[in-house]
């Protein structure tokens, strides 16, 4: 009994000791948090992105784009961005923890991320409490920026994306009936399906049915057979590329009679690998098309290809534009406190980005057109642009 209590005491001491170590060893801030110094505006930037997990492409590509932008911005010499990067593993709780960590331990003045809608929705209130502006490159769910004025984004929102898809299906393709295949575990998927449903109905289309699955499911055989019996002309599948890829592979040619529609979450090179090229008659709405004739786009594409040896997807372009938006805001900010940067971000107007002209509205959502591309077995083809 005696020995035990001594050991216990040792453990308690050890525990408290290491807590103190954690508390005292934190890095001291090296830059100046408050003022703009001289000519170069130095800002410490926190990145909380989904680099692994079901949204790995989303986080990874936008990070590539962001790094490219930071390189350009730092080379221009007016703003210096110092990126502290973390991976939230596409887990909302992890994202919230990391947001707190980058703000309180790394003392960043601005955050890029989180990548996905669930992660943004989870961390939104915390970001507001911590009073540090966060700009998400890729989260499109309508609710993301409702948490308060510290949350903004450079991408369009799902109500608009769903509307664009519905208008494309109804007007451009002239299709009448649709079946929805929704990922119930993903706010993005549910929100996009909702807005597609309401617009499609208001344009005189008919929703004949709805099926659900969950992120990470592997066996879609039952779902494919059930959908193949559907009367619909179009299957709308607003899900992650990781699930959709497997679904399309397993479907083989059983879904040939349908037109498939998807959202920007399909936009990943992994889609082609996972589906094994089993993509027929499919269109998605996304942020830009790699084969757009716009010179700004082509310059970005060639630069990206020269660095990363692959073609940039929509998320890469958004990552690049996030960098541009931050540069614009930081240059205009009164000083470099998080609050001042927040005000500058929220007043971004008419910024020329790769994904179009970016203007943040009163909800801090970017207002810009959606690009519809056709998904070929191994690439994309620009189809049309749909503005709000």
């Amino acid at each position, binding site marked *: 009994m005696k020995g035990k209590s001594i050991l216990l005491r040792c453990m308690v001491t050890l525990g408290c000791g290491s807590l103190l170590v954690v508390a005292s060893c934190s890095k001291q801030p090296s830059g100046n948090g408050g003022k703009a110094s001289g000519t170069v505006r130095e800002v410490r930037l926190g990145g909380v992105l989904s680099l*692994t997990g079901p949204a790995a492409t989303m986080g990874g590509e936008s990070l590539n784009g962001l790094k490219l932008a930071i390189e350009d911005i730092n080379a221009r010499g007016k703003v210096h961005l110092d990126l502290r990067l973390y991976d939230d*593993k596409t887990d909302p709780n992890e994202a919230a923890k990391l947001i707190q960590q980058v703000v309180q331990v790394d003392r960043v003045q601005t955050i890029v991320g989180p990548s996905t809608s669930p992660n943004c929705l989870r961390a939104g209130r915390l970001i507001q409490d911590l009073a540090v502006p966060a700009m998400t490159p890729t989260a499109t769910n309508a609710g993301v920026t409702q948490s308060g004025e510290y949350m903004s984004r450079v991408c369009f929102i799902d109500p608009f994306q769903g509307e664009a898809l519905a208008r494309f299906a109804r007007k451009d393709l002239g299709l009448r009936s649709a079946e929805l295949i929704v990922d119930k575990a993903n706010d993005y998927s549910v929100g996009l399906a909702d807005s597609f449903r309401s617009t499609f109905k208001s344009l005189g289309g008919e929703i004949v049915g709805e099926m659900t699955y969950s992120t990470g499911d592997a*066996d879609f*055989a039952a779902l494919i057979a*059930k959908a193949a019996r559907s009367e619909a002309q179009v299957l709308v599948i607003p899900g992650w590329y990781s699930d959709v890829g497997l679904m399309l592979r397993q479907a083989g040619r059983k879904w040939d009679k349908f037109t498939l529609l998807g959202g920007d979450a399909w936009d990943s090179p992994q889609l082609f690998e996972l*589906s094994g090229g*089993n993509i027929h008659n499919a269109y998605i709405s996304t942020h830009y098309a790699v084969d757009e004739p716009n010179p700004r786009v082509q310059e970005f594409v060639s630069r990206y290809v020269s660095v990363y040896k692959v073609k940039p997807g929509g998320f890469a372009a958004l990552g690049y534009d996030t960098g541009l938006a931050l540069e614009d805001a930081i240059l205009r900010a009164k000083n470099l406190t998080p609050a001042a940067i927040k005000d500058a971000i929220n007043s971004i107007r008419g910024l020329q980005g790769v994904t179009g002209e970016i203007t943040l509205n009163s909800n801090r959502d970017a207002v810009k057109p959606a690009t519809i591309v056709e998904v070929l077995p*191994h690439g994309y083809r620009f189809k049309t642009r749909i503005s709000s």
Partner: protein
Amino acid sequence: MSYLWAQIVNGLMLGCMYGLIAVGFSLVYGVARLMNFAHGEFFMAGAFGALFTAELPLWKWSGGAGATVFGTLALSALAGAASGAVVSVLVERLAYRRVRRVSRTATFLVAVGASILLQQIGFKVFTASPRGFPDVCIPDPAAVPLISWLEPSAGLPCNALATPPLRAMALSPSGTSAVTFVVLALAISGAFFFVLRTDTGLAIRAVSIDEKSARSIGIRPQPAIVMTFAVGGALAGIAGFLWSLRYGGVQPLMGFIPGVKAFVAAVIGGVGSVTGAVLGGLLLGLLETLSFAYLPGEVSGYKDALALLLLLVFLLIRPHGLLGRKLGEAA
């Protein structure tokens, strides 16, 4: 009718895979009295082993396309079995052997720890992003009678996509079904043969019925346990190969849900019984697929809970499962 038939085939395929994993789980439980929670990770290891073998440029060395395809399939299956078995035996040697006699909770927690560890290693070594299993193809699916028998509606040409030739021949879904079916039948009958007809199988059964008596007639339990882990891991590895061939994706977390399902299948079938495990798996697979096929869409979110509900019902009504002896009470 054909819709029902297609869904029954889907359910049976899924069920057989659950069953295959469950057999190993059940054998291990019978011999080592260990709820091997890491069994799903042996399945994952098997899938990765099969994936890397299937990605080897075999077509460079073999003659015709047909030989390539069947050679690749056979080699992948073997590699899957081997990697499942190796990981399984390693885990037994490094983690379970020490705690087996201590307490049930400790052994179970070691299993959970091993499961997390293997997943983490998978993340670090293979990265978290899912990989597509290479398309392996039977050159002319219509030439294999089994396929047209299984899924008469789908008579499918291979679409030529790109070089290398192996990728060029996309395996049709019905072709995969046929391969899955054959390998499953082979693996399950192999398991039966091993347990019921070989000396090692006899030793395993003896140890699982009564370890002390088995010792007294000269059977050493430790080799039997290692053998059980090897066979169980190999079966899970084959299931991993079939799973990735049929469903297409390979990633480090893939073992978790099938592992839990197999766990349930083994308990429903009666832990320790090979036939029971297969039956439990089939029951679960059919239930899952048919409930999705015929119940309205809102219910489909309960797919994974269905298995556990079934488990709860069995625990309350028939705790020793369909075919099992009463186990696990005293220890």
